[in-house]
């Protein structure tokens, strides 16, 4: 075991994946010699050479288009989009090509070896275009998996599983925690399952569901509610698509209450999809309406970042409202 932050865990996973399989390639804007703007790809080019690790021009739809071509020919591209906010120029390639190739070729081939890494989320005073959480846009697109880790241990195991999964994966890294989240990480190769939520803490009164950087927010809110005698079951969804409805529904059947927290805006966010499924499957178990504590329905603000964020206080208040419905 070694102490690592999320960036070090991601970097460690990439080193292992590239050593393990010579078909793995890493490319994107500035990922080469300097290891990217966050240094997640440090020392990869030095170790694995410029054919396997290289800087691209400023061309997000190109990065994914090139990656689609490479993946369809057997390479294992790990393409980086420098910030989640820059993924929209590549939206067309991801939605119309990456996610569809297996289906539209009638199963002749896919680009399932492709992994797209991108830092997402706010809390770093990044303003409109360095803060967004675009997971729900991609959750609406059958054919691509979406994975979001909450800490270094999860980041390494889930990234290795994503790179080796036979489906394209959008791997979203919580940039607010890149250096802030530090933990013990095994130095050896290991994988964590995709499509499986994790019950982080068991409880009996309410289920709190989040992913990525919002996990520490719901944990903090749960501690506050605990002092008021509320026992929270805390779940990390980990995979947004496909998502683990069974684990969430089993928990709600026990607690009778559900709160979902995400940083993306409320309307059309992934919490809406979870809520729709849970009310369908657990209607008779519910003691109160499903609560959503999410980002504001505004562009991501700079000055109003504090108001925008679905923080632990908003979450605590929503827990108490749900408990006293």
């Amino acid at each position, binding site marked *: 075991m070694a102490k690592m932050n999320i960036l070090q865990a991601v970097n460690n996973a990439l080193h292992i994946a590239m050593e393990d399989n010579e078909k793995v390639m890493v490319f994107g804007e500035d990922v080469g010699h300097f290891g990217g703007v966050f240094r997640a790809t440090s020392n990869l080019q030095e170790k694995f050479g410029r054919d396997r690790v290289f800087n691209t021009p400023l061309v997000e739809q*190109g990065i*994914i288009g090139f990656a*689609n071509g*490479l*993946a369809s020919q057997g390479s294992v591209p790990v393409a980086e989009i420098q910030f989640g906010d820059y993924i929209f120029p590549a939206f067309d390639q991801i939605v119309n090509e990456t996610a569809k190739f297996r*289906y539209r070729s009638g199963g002749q081939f896919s680009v399932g070896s492709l992994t797209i890494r991108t830092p997402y989320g706010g809390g770093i005073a990044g303003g409109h275009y360095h803060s967004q959480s675009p997971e729900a846009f991609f959750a609406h697109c059958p054919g691509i998996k979406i994975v979001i880790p909450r800490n270094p241990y999860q980041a390494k195991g889930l990234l290795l599983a994503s790179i080796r999964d036979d489906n394209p994966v959008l791997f979203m890294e919580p940039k607010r925690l890149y250096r802030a989240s530090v933990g013990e990480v095994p130095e050896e190769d290991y994988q964590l399952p995709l499509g499986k939520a994790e019950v982080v803490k068991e409880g009996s009164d309410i289920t709190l569901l989040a992913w990525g950087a919002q996990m520490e927010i719901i944990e903090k809110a749960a501690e506050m509610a605990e002092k008021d005698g509320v026992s929270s079951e805390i779940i990390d969804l980990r995979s947004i698509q*496909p998502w683990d409805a069974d684990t969430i529904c089993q928990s709600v059947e026990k607690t009778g209450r559900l709160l979902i927290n995400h940083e993306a805006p409320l309307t059309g966010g992934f919490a809406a999809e979870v809520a729709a499924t849970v009310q369908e499957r657990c209607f008779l178990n519910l003691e109160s309406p499903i609560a959503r504590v999410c980002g504001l329905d505004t562009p991501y603000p700079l000055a109003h970042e504090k108001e925008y964020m679905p923080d632990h206080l908003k979450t605590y208040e929503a827990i108490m409202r749900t408990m006293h419905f």
Partner: protein
Amino acid sequence: MKNSSPETQESAVTFENMNGAYKLSVLKSMLRIRMVEEEIAKRYPQGKMRCPTHLSVGQECVPAVIGTLLSESDLAVSTHRAHAHYLAKGGDLKAMLAEIYGKQSGCCKGRGGSMHLIDEKVGFKGSTAIVGNTIPIGVGLALSQKLRGKNDITVVFLGDGAIEEGVFYEAANFAVVKKLPVLFVCENNLYSVYSPLKVRQPQGRKICDIASTIGLHSQEGDGNIVAETHRVLTTAIDVCRQGQSATFVELHTYRWREHCGPHYDNDIGYRSEAEFLAWKERDPIELYKTQLYKAKILDAEKLQVMIRQLETEIQDAFQFAETSPYPPSEQAYSPVFAQGVNINIAEVANG
């Protein structure tokens, strides 16, 4: 013809030196494309081909010639107007027609239709209805070929409209930086749906010059003349295969029928009957036949034999497509993901 890279020499293999059998094979390929497309147009109103369909009538020369110059391990990607490219790359006529009919025996098991042909067996890595979308994918394919160190190339078919999409510049730029073995084949047919080139791009600026400015080895030529198309493409393919440069060719041609569908549309006012007739006078097949007659490579009997063979093949292929079964309903969710992935949508829908 324009050649913007003076250091590049003309290919040693000239069309004039090719033997009669080769020249007849090009004619047969052009006729095959024409006759397939005309048969689709004839049968389309029956309502059995239910997908939007874009025909290549009038544009047979470029695909027919390039088809003779590529190897099986070369790759190609294409556009919404893909039938000719698919057939020229060695695609299976039966599988293409079955795909247009939405049948399980189609090259994509009926999942795609006319605009979305894919056939890995012949290196046809996909056509797409999103104009420009296959351009960066083709460049990625060329990067994979370069990394493998073989002499294979990727052909990216595109039209004059795709030049207006930003991704053309973006992908071409990268292909030049990396010296990738990619050949962009631009069939300039003057129209994007109902908009003529002159309202979309500045008059006097040539598409091949844009390509040249980006750094691509760039040429232009008459895409209705077999010998000229052959000359331009052989040069481009040589440059590409030798790894000298990513290459671009602009070949001028004209689509005879409407943008999408089986009809002629000269009466609706976006182009004139006179313009169409002028281009029809320059029918690539008639021009080529005349040349072959003059050279005594072709005569009426040879032509009749060729047409009869093609008629039989085409009728058999339509028969195959029309009698093939549709994909079974239980396969509607397959294959979205690799096997073993739980799809929540399916569970919910099934109650």
